[in-house]
């Protein structure tokens, strides 16, 4: 797995971050919007995984992007091209802070959010729910059961296996097979419509 800093100067994020850092504060609106468009969905994903809540993930996204752009404007990043590393670090610290009940996030949002250039984001895909239900019904019983138990309250393979008397490896194989069939079926429906 590559490190976040690998060839940082050559990444689109690194180039855009340098442009923001080199401009007078607030004078790089386009670059700031570009950075937002590039990084905000990734921060949101991080938030979804670690906070398990769409609103909390959206808050994290706003906070981290506000903080990152504020730091770039103020010259607070010594190596702006390493912005990915900074963003990931900020995500980790913010999630830890949130768990400790910190209020710094709200203060920063209040201070900077007003003049942050937002870009349109393509958020997670939306699926045809009737199609998903139909495709689920077509799965073999065992695969459907494993998928329902896995996703309904986001159970890891060990918990599903314990309840069904299956090994972890067996659950992962059934889960893999079921997801593959479900994706193909849902995708086929999307192509038809």
């Amino acid at each position, binding site marked *: *797995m*590559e490190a976040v800093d690998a060839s940082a100067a050559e990444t689109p994020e690194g180039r855009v971050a340098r442009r923001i850092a080199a401009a007078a504060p607030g004078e790089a609106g386009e670059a700031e919007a570009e950075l937002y468009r590039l990084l905000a*969905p990734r921060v949101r994903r991080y938030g979804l995984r670690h906070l398990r809540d769409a609103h909390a993930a959206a808050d994290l996204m706003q906070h981290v992007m506000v903080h990152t752009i504020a730091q770039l404007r103020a010259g607070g990043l010594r190596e702006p091209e390493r912005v990915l590393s900074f963003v990931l670090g900020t995500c980790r610290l913010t999630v830890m802070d949130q768990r400790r009940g910190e209020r710094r996030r709200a203060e920063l949002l209040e201070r900077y959010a007003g003049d942050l250039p937002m870009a349109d984001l393509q958020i*997670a895909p939306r699926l045809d*729910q*009737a199609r998903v239900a139909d495709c689920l019904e077509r799965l073999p019983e065992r695969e*459907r059961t494993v998928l*329902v138990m*896995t*996703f309904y309250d986001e159970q890891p393979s060990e918990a599903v296996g314990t309840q069904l008397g299956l090994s972890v490896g067996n659950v992962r194989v059934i889960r893999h097979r079921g997801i593959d069939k479900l994706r193909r079926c849902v995708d086929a429906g999307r192509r038809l419509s």
Partner: protein
Amino acid sequence: MSGAAGHLSVDALLEYWLHDDAPAVSVDAADEHLMQCDACGQALDELIALGEGVRTAFRAGAVSAVTTSGFVQRLAGQGVRLREYRLPVNGSVNCTVAPDDDLLVSYLEAPLAGVQRLDAVTEWSLEPGVEHRLEDVPFDPQAGEVLYLPKIAAVKKLPENILRVRLLAVESGGAREIGRYAFFHRPWPG
């Protein structure tokens, strides 16, 4: 477990998302990778959307499932309104479903010790002579019961009818019936 061109495989993404024990790729490594790889990020978005689709379909009563009492108890703990019927081997029950029920649960008691594979055959009085076979249904042999959750959204629309279910232990020599059950369904009055 990385996929092509250094990308995370679907399994690795799923393990990451579901907090699986002993994932092939550590959480920190996956966080770092996803912070710079939009292709993997979009693949994860697709998986999350698929998971949400499964959850929504199940919550809406649009899919049936054979599951376990542990799962049903967790649902009850989350405030899901259950209507439950327990049938002994070769038993029958008068049943219905209320408009505000979220889930219909049938507990079919059966001698499951030693059973390797279980099939269920269903027949509705609305379609006489037409049997549907559910192959290799999951079960916990220790529990001595099979939990069947029908599509409650469809059941709520059914007229009076009888559903007959047979459980078959599938063995090398063929299938052996280990229980039969009858549900005498009536629509919710009013």
